[in-house]
Structures are given as structure tokens and as C-alpha cells.
């Protein structure tokens, strides 16, 4: 299994910018449990930022998932969106497992709301657009533990 290490030097602004590393944004969601490990926030442009708020490296899968959320009914449905990854640039694609150093964060390219070209241009023959509504990202740890982001809104296009 390929592993990419984000050995992040937070004092290096240039490196941080190149890796899509940003400061925290207003809407945040910490993982449930006695010890918060990852803090997830979503910008107005639907960009997800994952921050390691623990004192140890965290290993997470680069595949990013999306759920549609019906807050009124209290239900959610996981979508089968393709090509959605924790990546700040389209190329190169990230390794299967990312290691987020303590205090480090990673901002992913926002979800386009599409099924195939979900972040970047892909070789798509079948394509779908998801409807306007509320969604959330789900980040998965290497062990399968999941962290959900705050809700964000996909506007009608």
C-alpha cells in the first residue's frame, strides 16, 4: 500500500500553500468521542479542510466520501461519487493513505456536485449532477473510523 506522508512544517508558508494547507475556517466538526483527533471544516466554496488536532500522526484514506443529508428527517444517504479524493491539486493523485502530522491540516479541492468529474476533469462518459441540497463529507481513517464534516449546501445550478 502506498503511503504519502504530509510531514508538514506549519511555519513554512510556501510549503503550506503548495499543499493546500490553510488555517481553520469557521464551521467545524470534531470527531465524537473522548479524544478529538480530526477537526473538519467546510468553506463557503465547499472546500473541506481536515486538521489533526491530536498530538500524534493520523493515518487517513485519501478517498473522500459524500452523504446527502435530510436534516428534517434526520436521515442521510451515502453517495457513490467517483474520483473524489483528499487532494489539493488534480495531479498528481494522492497516495492511498495519507499521514497527517500533529497540528497539520489539508484542504481538498471542493466537490463539483457531479458524479464522475467530481473534482477535476476526468474521462467521463456517463455523468450525473446531484441535486441542490445539504451534504456532508466523510473522512475515513486507515482503520475504518469515520469523521463527518459540518453540513454544506449544494446550490441549484
Amino acid at each position: 500500500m502506498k503511503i504519502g506522508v504530509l510531514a508538514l512544517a506549519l511555519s513554512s508558508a510556501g510549503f503550506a500553500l503548495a499543499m493546500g494547507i490553510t488555517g481553520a475556517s469557521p464551521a467545524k466538526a470534531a470527531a465524537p468521542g473522548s479524544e478529538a483527533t480530526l477537526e473538519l471544516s467546510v468553506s463557503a466554496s465547499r472546500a473541506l479542510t481536515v486538521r489533526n488536532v491530536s498530538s500524534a500522526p493520523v493515518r487517513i484514506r485519501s478517498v473522500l466520501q459524500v452523504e446527502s443529508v435530510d436534516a428534517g428527517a434526520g436521515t442521510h444517504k451515502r453517495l457513490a461519487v467517483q474520483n473524489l479524493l483528499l487532494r489539493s491539486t488534480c495531479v498528481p493523485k494522492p497516495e492511498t493513505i495519507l499521514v497527517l502530522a500533529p497540528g497539520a491540516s489539508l484542504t481538498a479541492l471542493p466537490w463539483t456536485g457531479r458524479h464522475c468529474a467530481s473534482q477535476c476533469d476526468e474521462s467521463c462518459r456517463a455523468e450525473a449532477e446531484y441535486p441542490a441540497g445539504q451534504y456532508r463529507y466523510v473522512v475515513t481513517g486507515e482503520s475504518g473510523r469515520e469523521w463527518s464534516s459540518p453540513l454544506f449546501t449544494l446550490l441549484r445550478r
Partner: protein
Amino acid sequence: MPSVRNARIQIHDRPTVETPKPDGTDMLFRCTKITATGTADLLSVETATPAGWTFGWMQAEWCETNWAYFRGQHNGDGSVFWQRGRTPARTSRACRDTITAGVPIYNDVTAGQAMNLTSATALPASLTAGHYDKPGESFPLQTTNTLTGKQNFLREAQLEFMFCAILVLLSPSKRVHQLAHFYWNVRWQGTFLPSNFSDLSARWQVTLNGRGQGAAASPVYQGSSDDRRFNHVIVGTPSAPHCNGVAAHAASNPNIRQSRVWDNFDVTR
């Protein structure tokens, strides 16, 4: 056999192709969306209830052209030809075009694109299903010619995606009843030249091949397509090749030919 009346397809948005444009490290080939609505009145089914029947769309991509020619700044830098439309890069000529691999219905993930009937569905029933697609492709702006060790730059490309969209009623045993269909396609052909070979983010000259670029949608035909070029991916095995998977494989594994000079390659193979 189910009894169906008034099967209709209305095409709302006909696709148009956009002029290829560089974006980052790639030349993008995009088109506008195609949308359609299929409707029909289902009067009866041969099963006890309508449970398990599905009304929606199937789509085949029955032919694809997909190649690019790269050449160096100078004749001695060589040239490279990428073929994505032939084996082994393209693993299947025709494929079943679906959002989800291995399923028959084109779009089983977003609302309004198919109707899953239940035992509570009262017959006769008016059925409606929307259709949407927006295919796209890209080529890198440059590739390394391993014979010369020089960068070769995207010089020409041709892409043609040929589809047939079919309004269907699917039985619980997955038997396909084709109600109406139409053909459509998107095509790009052009030549490309960077204004600055050492800065590919600078302007590119894009020259379209007039009739090589366009899009079309046929009239709507009633009944089955019964087209032997792709019938097997519509009514055939459940494991029909999945177009997005076929395209992704070809994009990642093109058939590559190289030359030490600006060569002419046979684009038909």
C-alpha cells in the same frame, strides 16, 4: 409482456461541444449537457404486481474515436502518437454507459432519473424518467518522447463519442423492454500549438477542424434499437463493459507509438 402506451422522449437540451482549452497540465474537451425526459403509460404487467419493475434509461456508447498526436518543438525532438480508441487501451468497442458499474439503468443514483415500481403502484400508471449526460475527456499538454528524451507537445487530437439512449422498462428478472430511443454524439478535432514551448501556461493556438467538431442528436425512434453494433451491451450479459471504466483504463493506458522525427502515424490503428 407489459402493456405500454404513449412511450415518448422529449429532448430538452441538445449538446454542443466547446472549443478545447488548456487547463493546468491538460487540454480539456468539454461539451454542454444533453437532457431528455421519457414518459409512458404502463397499463399492465405479467407479474402479480408492478413490484420490481423499473422504468428508466439505458445508454450504450457504441463507437469511440480517441487519439492524440504530440510532436517536439523541432523535427529532431520526435513525435508521439497516443491511441485510446483501439485495443488494448480500449478494452471494448461498445460498452454500457451507466453511472454505477454493473447495473442496467443509466442513472440509479439521482432522483427523477428512474422509477422503481412497487406493489403499491396503481396501474395504469404514468411513468416519467429524466436523462442527463455531459461526457468529457482530456489529453496532457505534453509527454516525454523516450526515444529522443525530449518533450513532445500536443499537436492534434480527434475525439468522437457515439451514444444511443434508450427508454426502457425493466422486468424484475432484468429483461429489457425497449420503448423508444435516440442516437447522439459529440466530436472534437483540432490542432494545437503553444505560443511558448517553455511556458505551457501561456496562450495556445487552437485551430478547429470545421466539420470534425460538433454534436448531434437524432430524431426519436419508437421501439427497440435492435442495433447489432451494441445490442449485446443492452440486452446481453449483466457484466457488460462499463463505459466510465473502459474510458478511464484507456486514458491511463494509451497505446503509444513514438518516432525520432515528426512522423505521420496511422490514426486508424
